[in-house]
């Protein structure tokens, strides 16, 4: 670097400003690189999730169609087939719904209407183990709020969310018909009764 002490004041200022701008640009450039990195990571995370979710039999349009044909003649056909897909993949992918519409001979919006109507179906990826907390009046007065708070704290998420490791999803549910043991939660459809803030940990440990 030139000996600034010998240069005149205005060009010293200019040089300092120039250096400051150059450093700033370096920082911005580094930040942009970091942002690119983060975006690339989340895209590949999503892709990994999709791939993980699509492991097994139902990972292609043709396999979806095969499954739907199995259910075509059965009562509640499309609904039963959606249950089967969810049991495998965890949620109803757009691919699945379009394939269902094709096989069951209904407009695509009908497949989506069914998927979006029933509380058991999800059109978004969610955690592998679905925890449902009953919030109907009998469980509510038995202390469901404390259970909700304990679960949110234990899992580090709010109701409606999925844990970052994809292991648990937390959802509200209405009465699951186990009212002799209020408050009740279910995990993957299996009921757990007389749940308290203290017993939440040991229930989660089973999964």
């Amino acid at each position, binding site marked *: 670097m030139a000996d600034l002490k010998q240069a005149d004041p205005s060009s010293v200022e200019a040089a300092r400003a120039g250096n400051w701008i150059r450093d700033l640009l370096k920082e911005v450039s580094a930040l942009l690189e970091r942002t690119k990195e983060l975006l690339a990571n989340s895209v590949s995370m999503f892709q990994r999730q999709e791939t993980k979710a699509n492991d097994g039999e139902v990972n292609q349009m043709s396999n979806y169609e095969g499954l739907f044909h199995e259910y075509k003649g059965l009562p509640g056909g499309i609904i039963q087939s959606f249950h089967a897909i969810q049991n495998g993949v965890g949620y109803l992918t757009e691919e699945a719904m379009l394939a269902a519409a094709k096989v069951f001979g209904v407009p695509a919006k009908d497949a989506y209407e069914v998927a979006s109507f029933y509380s058991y*179906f999800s059109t978004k990826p969610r955690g592998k183990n679905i925890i449902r907390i009953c919030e109907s*009046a009998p469980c509510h007065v038995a202390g469901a709020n404390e259970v909700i708070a304990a679960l949110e704290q234990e899992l580090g998420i709010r109701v409606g969310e999925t844990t970052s490791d994809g292991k648990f999803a937390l959802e509200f549910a209405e009465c699951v018909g186990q*009212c002799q043991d209020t408050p009740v939660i279910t995990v993957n459809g299996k009921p757990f009764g007389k749940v308290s803030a203290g017993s939440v940990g040991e229930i989660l440990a089973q999964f």
Partner: protein
Amino acid sequence: MPQELRIVLRNVGKIDALKIDEYLDAGGYKPLEKARSMPQEDLIREIKQSGLRGRGGAGFNTGQKLEFTFRAAGDQKYVICNADEGEPGTYKDRVIMQGDPQAVIEGMAICGYAVGATRGYIYCRAEYSYVADILKAAIAQAKEKGVLGDFEVEVCLGAGAYVCGEETALIESIEGRRGEPRCKPPYPPVSGLWGKPTVVANVETLANLPPIVEKGSEWFSGIGAPAYPGTRVLTLTGDVVNRIFIEAPTDTTVREVIYDFGGGIPGGKKFQSVQVGGNSGALIPESLLGAKIAFDAMAAVGATLGSGAVFVLDETRDLRDVVCRMARFFEQESCGKCTPCREGTMRIADICEKVSVGKGRAADLALLQEIGEMMAIACFCGLGQAAPTPVLTAIRHFDLLGGKGCA
């Protein structure tokens, strides 16, 4: 001291639900044999005369329903068991299906013979998938034993929608669509599943049929309240010592249910209110506890027998909070098809929320009254028509703006 009378629950806890031989040893499938030896009109008359009325909540005479279906024209008829037990606080049908699934299947086969239906479906809610497994095993055993004759039964799973307890919404669901109710008339006995004559009956109603056929209509009609004979299976929840299920004759009073069978209020606290019939039931005060657990007797005091859930609240409960939670249930479960329900349940829930945080005013109560009355007339199905009941009865019998212990 009132006693239980276990007709519906006759085998529950006494036989292994997954061993059809035990059901047969207990006399199972003899009623179906007897039914099949009678002319259909005679069988239907017998069931009509027994006075058996639907145990799902609507209370329609079962024999009359069978007669409509029998008389309707159709090349194929169906029997549907409504096992979509979604009413909060209710698990009686689960107890019946888990404890004595063959009783339900036999009841369906009796209906099938009566109306000329050879196919039956048990619509089982998704929350009871473990019950569906029991039903499927029981059906397979019955088929293997050959006791069902030409009657074929299948299980069809729901997917989490309270509205599918409504018979036409249930039918829509079996047909693979959104569970949105249909316009009635035509009623299912005339045009139901895939447009064919269909009997839709509750689990408990069906489990009553084998004993009625076996012991006769006179026996059954002599039990309990004359206009609504027989028994009801009740599930007790909330602030009650014994959170159990019982089966009692229909001339038992609500007071007897809570204090004799239920053991009263725990912790020595005072009674505030009880909601009979599930989330859509009326909240009634102590003064009305003398009402019998029969359909008309409850209706006469502005209450509901409904699903037989008995949800007790002690003096410490803030009714504003409980009513708000009940209102949010209906907002959640409204199918969205008709505007008065879709919008009405939302508005009621929002106003109840406002009341529950102490910001309610008399004008809010007046508005709730207006919305409720509108919904009772304008809503397309029973969900919307009954949804305002908890909040309207809370306003009628209690000081809803008052707060904790506001009896």
